[in-house]
C-alpha cells in the first residue's frame, strides 16, 4: 500500500512539475495556460519544504525522535548554498570587491574568514551543504543517543541547539552576515538567477531531489534496518534487550535525515533569494513537525503532502487574511493532534479502505 502511494506521489510531483515547466517556458506571459514564474518559485519553495518534512518524518515517524531543531539542518544547508551564491557574485557587488561579499566590506572585514575558502567552487559548496548538517547531526546525535536522552528531553535539547545556532548566526562576528543574512544573489552555476529558465531548472532539480529522497527514505524504512528502527521507536528497551544497539540505528537515521534537510535548504535558498538567521528560529522547526503531523506521521508521502498543503494554506491565508494565519495554524496544531492522529493520509486510507 505504501509502495502504491509512493509511486503515486512521485508520479504526481514529476508530472505536475513537468507540466508547470513546459507551460512556463513554452507559452508567453498572458497566454491562457501560462504559468507565471512566481508560481514556479513558489512551488519550488513548497517542494524544498517537502524535503525538510520528509527528513522530519524519517526521524519522528520511524525513529520516534521528535526533533524540534530540524530547521537548523535546513538552514545550515541553506547557508552553505548562500555562501556559494555570494562568492559567485564576485566583483559585481555594491562595493565591487572581487573577494569579499558586500556585508563583509560593510562590516570592515579585511580578509575572507578561513571557513569561506572553497565556497567559490559550486561542487565544494554543494558538498558542504550536505556535510555540515551531517556533521552537526553526527556530533549532536552521538552524544545524545549514547547517553540515552530521549522523548521530550531530546525535543527540548534539539530546540536548544537550534536556538543556540539562531543566536550565533545573529552575531555579526560569525561572518555569516549577522542579522541581515545573505541576499542579492545574481547567478547560480553561471546562469542568471532571475531568468525563467533558471527558475524552472531549479524547480525541476528540487522535484527530482524530492523524489530521490523519497525513494531513499522508502528504501531505508522498508529494509531490515528500517524494521529494527521501527522496533526502536515502539519499544527501545525491548530492542536493546534483543541485542540491537538502538543508538546506532537512531544516529544513522538522524544523520541521514539531517543530510536531506541540508539538501532541502540548499535548494530553498536560490529559489527564495535570501537566507537569514530567522530560518533557525525554533518556531520554524516546530512548523515543520506540524506539516508531518497534518500529512500523516510515519508515512513519508504524508509528509510531502502535509508540507505542500500547509504551505499552500499559508500562502493563501497570509495573502487573503493575514490576521488569521496564526489562528489557522494554531487550530491546525490542536485539531490534528486531537482529532487526526494519523493525519490526512490516515483519513484517506480509512475512506478508501487502506488501498492508498
Amino acid at each position, binding site marked *: 500500500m505504501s509502495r502504491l502511494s509512493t509511486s503515486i506521489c512521485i508520479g504526481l510531483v514529476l508530472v505536475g512539475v513537468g507540466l508547470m515547466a513546459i507551460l512556463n517556458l513554452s507559452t508567453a506571459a498572458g497566454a491562457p495556460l501560462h504559468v507565471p514564474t512566481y508560481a514556479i518559485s513558489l512551488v519550488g519553495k513548497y517542494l524544498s519544504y517537502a524535503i525538510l518534512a520528509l527528513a522530519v518524518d524519517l526521524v519522528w515517524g520511524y525513529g520516534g525522535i521528535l526533533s524540534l531543531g530540524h530547521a537548523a539542518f535546513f538552514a545550515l544547508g541553506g547557508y552553505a548554498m548562500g555562501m556559494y551564491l555570494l562568492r559567485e557574485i564576485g566583483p559585481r557587488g555594491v562595493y565591487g570587491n572581487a573577494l569579499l561579499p558586500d556585508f563583509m566590506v560593510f562590516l570592515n572585514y579585511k580578509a575572507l574568514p578561513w571557513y569561506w575558502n572553497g565556497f567559490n567552487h559550486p561542487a565544494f559548496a554543494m558538498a558542504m551543504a550536505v556535510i555540515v548538517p551531517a556533521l552537526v547531526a553526527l556530533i549532536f546525535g552521538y552524544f545524545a543517543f549514547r*547517553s540515552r536522552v530521549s522523548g521530550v528531553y531530546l525535543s527540548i535539547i534539539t530546540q*536548544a541547539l537550534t536556538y543556540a545556532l539562531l543566536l550565533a548566526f545573529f552575531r555579526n562576528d560569525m561572518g555569516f552576515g549577522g542579522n541581515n543574512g545573505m541576499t542579492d544573489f545574481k547567478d547560480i552555476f553561471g546562469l542568471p538567477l532571475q531568468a525563467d529558465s533558471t527558475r524552472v531548472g531549479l524547480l525541476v532539480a528540487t522535484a527530482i531531489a524530492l523524489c530521490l529522497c523519497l525513494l531513499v527514505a522508502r528504501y531505508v524504512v522498508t529494509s531490515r534496518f528500517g524494521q529494527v528502527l521501527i522496533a526502536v521507536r515502539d519499544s527501545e528497551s525491548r530492542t536493546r534487550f534483543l541485542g540491537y544497539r538502538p543508538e546506532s540505528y537512531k544516529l544513522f537515521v538522524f544523520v541521514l535525515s539531517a543530510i536531506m534537510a541540508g539538501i532541502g535548504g540548499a535548494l530553498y535558498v536560490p529559489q527564495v533569494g535570501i537566507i537569514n538567521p530567522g530560518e533557525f528560529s525554533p518556531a520554524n522547526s516546530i512548523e515543520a513537525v506540524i506539516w508531518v503531523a497534518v500529512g500523516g506521521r510515519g508515512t513519508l508521502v504524508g509528509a510531502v503532502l502535509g508540507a505542500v498543503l500547509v504551505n499552500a494554506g499559508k500562502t493563501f491565508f497570509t495573502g487573503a487574511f493575514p*490576521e488569521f494565519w496564526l489562528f489557522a*495554524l494554531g*487550530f491546525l496544531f490542536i485539531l490534528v493532534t486531537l482529532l487526526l492522529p494519523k493525519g490526512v493520509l490516515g483519513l484517506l486510507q480509512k475512506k478508501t479502505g487502506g488501498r492508498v
Partner: protein
Amino acid sequence: MGWGSDPEGDVMVSIHRLLAVLLVSLPLLATSPARADDAPDPFIGLASQNFDIVANAISALAVSGHPQAAATIAAIEADNLYVDAAGDGAPLILIKQGDSYIDARTGQKASDINEDDVDSVRVNNAVRRAIEAAKGGLDLFAADADTRQKAAEKVFTSHDPAALPLLARAIAAEKDAGAKRAMQQAQAASLLAGDGGSDAERVAAVAILRLRGDVEAKSLLQSLHDQSKPVAAAIAAATSSLARIEQLWSVLQSVFYGISLGSVLLLAAAGLAITFGVMGVINMAHGEMVMLGAYTTFMVQEVIRTHAPGLFGASLFIAVPLAFLVSGIAGILIERCMIRFLYGRPLETLLASWGLSLILQQGVRSIFGSSNREVGTPEWMSGAVQWGGLVITWNRLTIIVFAVIVIAALMAVMRGTSLGLRMRAVTQNRRMAAAMGIRTPWIDALTFGLGSGVAGMAGVALSQIDNVSPNLGQGYIIDSFMVVVFGGVGNLWGTVVSAMTLGIVNKFLEPFAGAVLGKIVVLIALILFIQRKPRGMFPLKGRAVEQ
C-alpha cells in the same frame, strides 16, 4: 591639576585661594564677632573694580566668621549687593532689599542712601567661582550635618593641603559621626597630598583612606609618589588591599546581577516546574501564560490611570492576584479542553500546546496590537541604592524578593495544604490516589491552573523589565524548560538552584564573552550537561520516576 596655576582656572583654584586666605585669617574663626573689629575689614575688597580683588575678598569673607558673611555672599550671587563710595570713610557695602538698603557689615537698615551714588557689585566667572567655593567653605560649618558632610566630600575630592587647619577646626567642632568621618577622610587626603605631617601621621592617614576603600581613595593613593619608606609601604599595602576590595565588589555586583537574572528565570520557570516538573505536561503555551500576566498588569494600570490615578503605586499589588486568577483560569480551561485528552502522549501535547500558544499570541495581537504596551514602574520601584561598591536598583531587588515570596508560597502550597497533598499523591500514584477517593481529574485541572497562575504572576514581574508585547512569552520558553530540566524534573529546590546557577554563570560569562555568546555557551553547556545527567542536577529517586 597643579595648584597655584592660572587663577582664572576653575572652581578648584578658587577653593585654593579661599583656603590660602583661611590660613591667614584662621585665628579669627574661633573668636567672637566682637573681636572682628581688630581684623582687617573683609568687606573692603568688595568695593573694588578689580574682579580678582573682589574674588579674594569673597574668599576672605567666607572664612572670616563674620555673622553677615553668608548673607553678603548670597546677595552677591543674587546681584543684590551694592557699593556706596560717596562717604569719607570706607565705602558702604549695601544689600538691596526691595526699595531700601541694608548695611552688609551690620545688618542694620542703612538710611540716607542716594541712589546716584550706588553701584552694583559686578560679577564675572572668576567671582562666581569664588562665590561657589566660598559657599563650600561656609558649608563646612553649616547648621545642617548633611551639608557639612557634602562640603567635606568636596574637600576630599580637591584634597588640598591648605584645607588642613580649617578641617582640624571643623572636626573639633563636629558632632555628627558621618560628617566627622567625611572630614577626617578629607583631612587624611589633604595631608597625604601635601608634604606635611610626620611619617606616623601620614601612615595613619593612609589607614583612613584604606578604610574608606572606594575608587577615589584608591586613585588618590595611587597618585602619591616619592613617599618616605614606611609611608610608601603603607600605601602599597593599602592599594593592593583596595584593589582586592574593588575586585570583590565587582564580583559581588556580578553575583547580584546573576541573582537578579536568576530570579527572573526562576519566576518564568516556577510555573513550568509545576506543569512540566510535577505533572509531566509539556506546555509550550507556558510563555503565553506569562504574557497574559503581563497584559493583566497593563490592563490594571490602564484602569487605574483613568479611574484612580492615586492608586498607581499599588497597581502591581492589585495586578499580582489578578494575573494569578487570569492565567490560572486560562490554565484550567486549557487543561479541561485540551491537555486532558493528551495525557500519556507528551509529544502530541507539545504540538497542541504550541498551536495554542500561536492562537494566544495572535489573539493578544489582534486585541492589543503588535506594538509594545507601556507598563509603568511605580515610584517606589524606581531608582537605585548604592551600598559600598554595589549598585542595587530597586526594581531588580523587588523582583528578587518577589521571586523568593512566590517560591516560598508555592512550596507552602505543595507541602502544607491539602490541595498540595492531593497533587503530590496524584502525581506519585494516580490509581492509588483515585482509590483513596481523590478526584484526580479535578486535581489535574487545579495543578495545571496553579502552574499557569504562577506563570501569570511572573508576567507581572517581567512587565517591569521586559517589553510587554505578544512575543513576551516566546523569549522565556526555552530558558524556562532549560531551567527545569537542569534542576531536575519534579524538584522545586532543584529549579531554584538551577535558575540561580544559570543566572550567575550567565552574568559571569558576559564580561568575557559578551551577552549573546555567553548565552550560547550556557546553552551548549546545558546540552552537554543533559547528556551526562539526563534527569538534571537533583533527580527524583524512587519508583515514581520510572513511569
